[in-house]
């Protein structure tokens, strides 16, 4: 599975000014609606599913990164939205660090395997501290897409 197949410039948000988890998730879901990846009628359902998952335990995975996610029956193939913000967001992370990088994942309800694989390819890249440093200081969506494409192999 190649991460770049799921990365689109229009689904990247750099420099979002949100400070709260809920606001961040809301804005990232709005981006998917704006790009017609999910119908506006499903927006609230998507947001409430993401928030319900956060209630089970934070999806922050350490080092200022979070992978909020939800599995939904009206999603046909995995959707990804990436956010890099200068201001950290309180994500209730285990290590107490504020989150500045978000990979939001919406997956089809039935595809357990591809969901875990997508998280694996993202985490594999993030494990590289040089990649993570560059990601956190990225200034444009185009650069972010390029950074992922050149580092995923």
């Amino acid at each position, binding site marked *: 599975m190649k991460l770049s197949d799921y990365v689109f410039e229009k689904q990247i948000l750099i420099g979002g000014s949100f400070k709260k988890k809920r606001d961040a998730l809301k804005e990232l879901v709005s981006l998917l609606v704006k790009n017609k990846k999910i119908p506006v009628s499903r927006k609230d359902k998507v947001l409430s599913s993401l928030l319900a998952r956060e209630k*089970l*335990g*934070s*999806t922050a*995975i*350490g*080092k200022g*990164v979070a*992978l909020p*996610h939800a599995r939904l029956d009206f999603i046909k193939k995995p959707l990804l939205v990436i956010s890099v913000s200068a201001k950290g967001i309180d994500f209730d992370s*285990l290590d107490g660090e504020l989150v500045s990088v978000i990979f939001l994942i919406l997956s089809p309800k039935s595809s*357990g*395997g591809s*969901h*875990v*694989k997508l*998280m*694996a*390819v*993202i*985490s*594999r890249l*993030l*494990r590289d501290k040089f990649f993570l440093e560059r990601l956190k200081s990225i200034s444009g969506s185009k650069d972010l897409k390029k950074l992922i494409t050149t580092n995923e192999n």
Partner: protein
Amino acid sequence: MPKIEKEITVKNKQGLHARPAALFVQTAAKFDSSVKIEKNSELVDGKSIMGILSLGAESGNKIKLIVEGEDANAAVDELKRILISGI
């Protein structure tokens, strides 16, 4: 220091996804022992959610738990339970 290596088949229905990974890390953090997980000769830190997720371990996959330290026995017992649970 005691070092325990234990092969375990992942039983979590959706594999080692975010929730069991977080639970694993929270549990591992309670012990002084170092915790590592190996899959297909790739070794990651068992006290890092990012590390565990990067393995992409699915249900039925074999992984090796490598725990080293004075409390290794107790740690393996607890950690094993998470990997074979249904979460």
